[in-house]
């Protein structure tokens, strides 16, 4: 019996007949009017009851019309049922490239939920928050060890927010040096947040066309690297999974022009413990703790985007920093060149607790993360190369980007392959970028997949490639086993056909 995690024979698990399948469907809690139902009890009011109508007069609002009315039972069931419609890392390999969907250890959740961390207010006096400050201090120290940077700010709320923090520091440094400069260079393979960030930092974006290897073309860089360039934002390995072999020369060129080298550290998972970015000449880099450092993605967030900086950028770090002096930790606000604050309070603290827990768990073995992430991606590449087109052939690191070129001939596109993969029980690859690979299938297995799961995934991808030849209709009409069929297509199509007129239903109506 080979019943364990491998693919079944094509025999159906669910009988086919419409008459046989009577499963219930559940929509939104707002769909079912349950007037008069109650979900919570409060303690009896132990002070005289104030009358808001009398107190506020005209400004009084009698309540929130349209809000849910439900019992605790209704609510627990609703969200339990909802969850059952999600794919997740906890259920199978989640190949969404660039997102580093790795195992999220449960000890992280436990530690982050300790009341001593979780139930503390950010304005608690410092002498009563020494544990929290120690945690921040220790995480910064660990990230300094791993990156080689002089200091690391933990404040940014996510990767993109870290990018902006970095860009603002760069700009502040240039301003301080007398010239803000005008442009930021961004390779055409970059993630969308990079150009967006540059824009929000007040820079215009100049795109660098990639070399045939998918990396930065040095001649292109030199051509565009004027005195008006504030920084080059690169990603290493880049979104093709390719390492910038000539990173040291790139850094030299950039520095020679007085510009800064920004590293998008979203792909730190490919080299954590193996290379310190500061050693490569990187001046500033954000890390996505929700990628490399295993904090859960939570259906879209939260994340945390600490930013490490070289010595010359230290004065510009956001306030406060955490300092140790006279036997105590304290928050330092007195930093005259600081860019200020990126958000209220001290960052996504709970995410930081999880990340430190993870770093302590790996400790000095953390380079194994990178080693196995790269090994797994290469294994997938090797096994799928005969079946899917690989536009860029440079060695892969943590991810590999195929395209649908071979399948497109039969009218099957990356989106179809992605949807069909759902029927096989896997989360699809990333398709929205890199833009330089049309029909991209960006696959990042991470280190937390074992050989058996990699094989199951590869077998599914191969089976689909074969289906594209033998019965492409099955693929283009996929998925067949999910609670709903394709929805986004409809919306996107409608939007495209009536740009500006498309009116999606963004909320429940008030009854």
């Amino acid at each position, binding site marked *: 019996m080979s019943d364990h995690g491998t693919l079944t024979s094509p025999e159906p698990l669910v009988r086919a007949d419409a008459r046989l399948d009577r499963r219930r469907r559940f929509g939104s809690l707002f769909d079912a009017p349950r007037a008069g139902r109650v979900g919570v009890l409060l303690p009896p009011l132990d002070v005289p009851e104030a009358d808001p109508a009398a107190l506020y007069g005209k400004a009084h609002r009698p309540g929130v019309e349209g809000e849910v*009315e439900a019992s605790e039972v209704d609510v627990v069931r609703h969200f339990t049922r*909802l969850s059952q419609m999600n794919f997740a890392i906890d259920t199978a390999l989640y190949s969404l490239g660039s997102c580093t969907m790795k195992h999220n250890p449960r000890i992280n959740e436990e530690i982050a939920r300790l009341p001593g961390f979780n139930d503390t207010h950010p304005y608690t006096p410092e002498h009563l928050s020494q544990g929290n400050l120690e945690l921040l201090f220790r995480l910064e120290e660990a990230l300094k060890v791993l990156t080689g940077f002089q200091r690391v700010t933990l404040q940014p709320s996510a990767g993109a927010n870290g990018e902006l923090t970095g860009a603002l520091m760069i700009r502040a440094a240039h301003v301080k040096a007398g010239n803000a400069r005008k442009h930021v260079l961004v390779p055409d393979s970059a993630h969308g947040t990079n150009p967006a960030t540059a824009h929000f930092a007040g820079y215009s974006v100049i795109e660098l066309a990639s070399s045939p290897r998918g990396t930065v073309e040095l001649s292109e860089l030199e051509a565009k690297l004027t005195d008006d360039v504030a920084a080059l934002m690169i990603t290493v390995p880049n979104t093709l999974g390719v390492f910038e072999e000539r990173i040291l020369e790139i850094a030299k060129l950039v520095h020679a022009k007085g510009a800064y080298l920004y590293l998008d550290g979203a792909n730190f998972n490919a080299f954590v413990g193996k290379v310190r970015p500061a050693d490569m000449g990187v001046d500033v880099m954000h890390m996505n703790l929700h990628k490399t450092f295993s904090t859960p993605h939570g259906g*879209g967030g939260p994340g945390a985007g600490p930013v490490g900086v070289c010595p010359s950028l230290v004065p510009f770090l956001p306030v406060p920093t955490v300092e140790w002096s006279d036997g105590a930790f304290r928050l330092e606000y007195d930093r005259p060149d600081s860019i200020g604050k990126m958000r209220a*309070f001290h960052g996504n603290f*709970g995410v930081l607790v999880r990340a430190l*827990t993870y770093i302590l768990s790996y400790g000095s073995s953390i380079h194994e993360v990178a080693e196995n992430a790269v090994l797994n991606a290469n294994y997938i590449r090797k096994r799928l190369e005969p079946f899917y087109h690989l536009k860029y052939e440079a060695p892969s690191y943590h991810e590999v980007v195929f395209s649908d070129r071979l399948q497109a001939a039969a009218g099957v596109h990356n989106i179809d392959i992605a949807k069909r993969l759902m029927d096989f029980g896997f989360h699809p690859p990333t398709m929205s970028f890199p833009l330089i690979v049309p029909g991209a299938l960006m696959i990042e297995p991470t280190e937390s997949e074992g050989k058996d799961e990699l094989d199951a995934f590869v077998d599914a991808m191969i089976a689909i490639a074969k289906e594209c030849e033998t019965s492409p209709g099955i693929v283009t009409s996929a998925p067949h086993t999910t609670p709903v*069929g394709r929805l986004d297509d409809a919306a996107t199509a409608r939007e495209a056909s009536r740009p500006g007129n498309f009116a999606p239903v963004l909320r429940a109506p008030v009854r």
Partner: protein
Amino acid sequence: MRYIPSSPAEREALLAAVGAVSIDDLFATVPRAVYRTERPTLPPPASEIEVRRDLGRVAAKNAHLGEWTSFLGAGLYSHHAPAFVSQLLLRGEFLTSYTPYQAEVAQGTLTAIWEFQTHMALLTGMDVANASMYEGASAFVEAVLMAERLTKKRTKVVVSTGVHPEYRQCLRTYLVNFPFTIVEVPLGKDGTTDAGALAAAADDATFAVCVQSPNVFGIVETWKAAADAAHARGALAIGVVNEMFSLAVLEAPGSAEIDIACGEAASFGLAPSFGGPLVGFLACRDAYKRQIPGRLVGRATDADGRSGFCLTLSTREQHIRRERATSNICTNQGLFALAATMTLSVLGKQGLRETAVQCLSKAEYLKAAVKAIPGPFSVAFAGKTFNEFALHCGVPVNEVLRRAEAKKILAGVPYARLEPSASAYRDLLLVAVTERTPRSGLDALLDTLRSF
């Protein structure tokens, strides 16, 4: 390592399959000068037993709200967190999934986000809301930038100083590189933003007028004053809320001609967690939806007519629009938007209202009692409040804190901590209550004040 499944033998098999002799082969394109062969200088791997011991001790060094009576607020309020919420958040299907790019395998997340959008829209009286922002301050900044895009070619934003100082500080940080000026309008004697000053500050170059209610001193503002000031000049009015329960007893910004509402929704059951992760929100009129930053979920039907949810209007976003996107936000606060949604669902209409009335009643009780104390304390402003007020201290604020600490009370947030430069407010202590603050706690604080 327990987080890396493959055994050494399996790793060998993988290496062999890719045709590599050693792991180093896979890193061949890394410049040798920076390729590290020694281990990182971190301590050896720690077991769960050790991590629990180590970080358990660290956590124990903090004063936490389970053991202390807290009057801390100032933008972050500790309300009731229903027991089921944190347990359901641990479900792997919620916890370990990502942005629902693939709708067919993410209906759970998508439905919940759509409900979050609905809750935020209902509470603020707006037409639409987005899938979440990082937290209140950055949501505020995004709202201001959005107003600028919507009004075009204007350069000035008028902000009440009743907006939380850290929010205003963030605005300065984010706007420094744009040719915009920020004009801050001071508060009047009663603690509300002076309507005249607001109107005076707004001019034809103004793209937004911003107020917060209850403001940082807990004072209820008149939304309409900001809306009028803005609209008189063709600008947009932005309403900031960071104590969302106030919206169960106070006029919604959307009902008072505010154009964009934004702020912090952590009041809905989120643990304070030293200030994050929280959950920002941004809501607005339907006409402005194409300038909303961040993600939006819409309801749609599939080819067979089945109803479902999917990300929509994505062309606003960075992954499509790149440098012309409405924001650079990508990862948001999904899990905590879900937590707030769960909490709101179980609170419901009635729980929202009851909670708000309790908060109000407890604050009124405290204010009345403070006024009756003959000592060096007074309620700083005459304006109406919800669950927080500024206590004027005739003795050093720190002395008040210290005496309270001896009784395991966190008496409040010294305003000086938020804005050290605001010397006029140096003697103010912000005191907040919620439905979790028992009468005995209120009385214990009053006893401390009476001891002066």
